[in-house]
């Protein structure tokens, strides 16, 4: 971005209208519950397959296996693709299955864990995510925020602008002045990816795991290339979303924690002068 000729005075923008703030914080809470319950559901069968079927004895592209399950610390191995790592003492926790067998979990579960209840929580909160997403999509389009704030401008896509954006990010440089008033290209791309790709993938792959839903919409299974592929995509999309959240929170600190939190709580965002330190 070219430096502005006149430094912008310290100004307060009304950056985030109420629907944005509500969706943001409601989703933060909902995703936290979905992530925790989702990890626990994954925990009981820490294997990911591609295609339709997937169970013990079927090749998995990600799998935690273990021996000596009777020991306090079972010997465990993590396999991703054709790579294998000894993860004894890092991953792996054994519980009785209640039928004389044992389960190898990826990580220790709470002592009074009820697996069935975990699924119940997951589905209850999935409703909130699934229902709020289309509403938010409609709001973004209807309010014009999608084109105003999220879609890249012609200027964003100029090579020089892209290069400078990457350079700013690498130096963890805080945006100031006029450029702070707009989302930058990387921000736009990641928000668009979360709202229009990642969360829809989570919702659709989740629905694909429902027997009844696939009776009505068999194409869902084809869309993901199989029932187990849908489960794997659900996990992969969730992990990508977690990566987004980590970077997102990190950037909040880089960009100014107080100002960022204020803008997402009250809507008001302070634009620093171009030349302030």
């Amino acid at each position, binding site marked *: 971005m070219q430096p502005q000729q006149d430094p912008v005075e310290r100004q307060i923008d009304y950056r985030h209208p109420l629907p944005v703030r509500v969706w943001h914080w409601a989703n933060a809470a909902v995703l936290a519950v979905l992530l925790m319950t989702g990890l626990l559901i994954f925990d009981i069968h820490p294997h990911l397959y591609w295609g339709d079927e997937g169970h013990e*004895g079927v090749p998995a592209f990600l799998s935690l296996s273990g021996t000596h399950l009777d020991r306090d610390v079972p010997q465990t191995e993590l396999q991703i693709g054709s790579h294998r790592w000894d993860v004894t003492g890092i991953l792996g926790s054994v519980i009785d299955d209640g039928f004389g067998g044992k389960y190898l979990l990826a990580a220790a579960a709470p002592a009074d864990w009820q697996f*069935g209840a975990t699924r119940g929580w997951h589905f209850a909160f999935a409703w909130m995510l699934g229902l709020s997403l289309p509403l938010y999509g409609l709001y973004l389009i209807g309010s014009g925020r999608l084109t105003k704030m999220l879609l890249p401008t012609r200027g964003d896509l100029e090579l020089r602008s892209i290069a400078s954006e990457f350079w700013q990010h690498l130096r963890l440089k805080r945006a100031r002045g006029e450029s702070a008033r707009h989302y930058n290209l990387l921000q736009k791309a990641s928000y668009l990816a979360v709202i229009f790709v990642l969360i829809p993938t989570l919702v659709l792959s989740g629905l694909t795991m429902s027997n009844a839903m696939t009776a009505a919409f068999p194409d869902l299974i084809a869309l993901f290339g199989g029932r187990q592929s849908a489960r794997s995509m659900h996990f992969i999309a969730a992990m990508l979303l977690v990566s987004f959240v980590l970077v997102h929170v990190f950037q909040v600190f880089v960009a100014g924690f107080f100002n960022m939190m204020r803008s997402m709580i009250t809507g008001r965002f302070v634009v620093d002068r171009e030349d302030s330190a």
Partner: protein
Amino acid sequence: MTELISRRALLGSLAATGTLLAGCSRLDDKTPFRQLLGAADGFTMHAQRLIVAKRALVRELPLAQLSATFPMNGTTLPKGDYYARLLETEFRGWKLRVHGLVDRPLALTLAQLQSLPARTQITMHNCDEGWSAVGQWTGVQLARLFALSGLKPGARYAVFHCLDKLDLDGNYYYESIDLQDALHPQTILAYGMNGRQLPVGYGAPLRLRVETQIGYKNAKYVDRVEVVDRLDAIGKGRGGWWEDFDNAVWYAGQ
């Protein structure tokens, strides 16, 4: 609440997640949260019933997709003398009972069940744990049995009482579905698996296949089918063993 699964050798890097979730699972027993989960489950059922046609068939697969091995889950051999005797006599003296809110209670031997028109379906079994395996199931449609028995007004649920007592708490396994799922054409009581007689590990003499729902609803070792108008007088009142003891959702179409 009975401690379901004894835990040992606890370790792991995601212990923080575990600790937070421990909070959640304790919340499950608090009435408002249980009601919340129950309400969400009911909402799921009604939403699905709105958009899924009543008789929409779950995908049936070609023989080539049959799983070479099929996990044996839950009880793999019911304990006790009664089942041992049934096994010894190859279930010859055993009869499936259909009773409760029916006009004509039934008691049918395995041979009688096998003489009724059969349905064979190759479907994917999806366990709530996350795995899937394909099996071929042969049996009699529940709708056919109910056509024989007739249903009294007020009949709402089919309850499947099983022959296996779960070690965890000493109660017999049971499950229930409502009549819409019970009368679904793919809902069968299977006596055959993969072209052979249903093996003991998979639920002989009979197992329920309710293809619109997930694994634990597909009760093994079915002994009798009771038709009822309400579920609260059975077991602990939540419609199934896992529902009673593990707070599992009753409607498992998801």
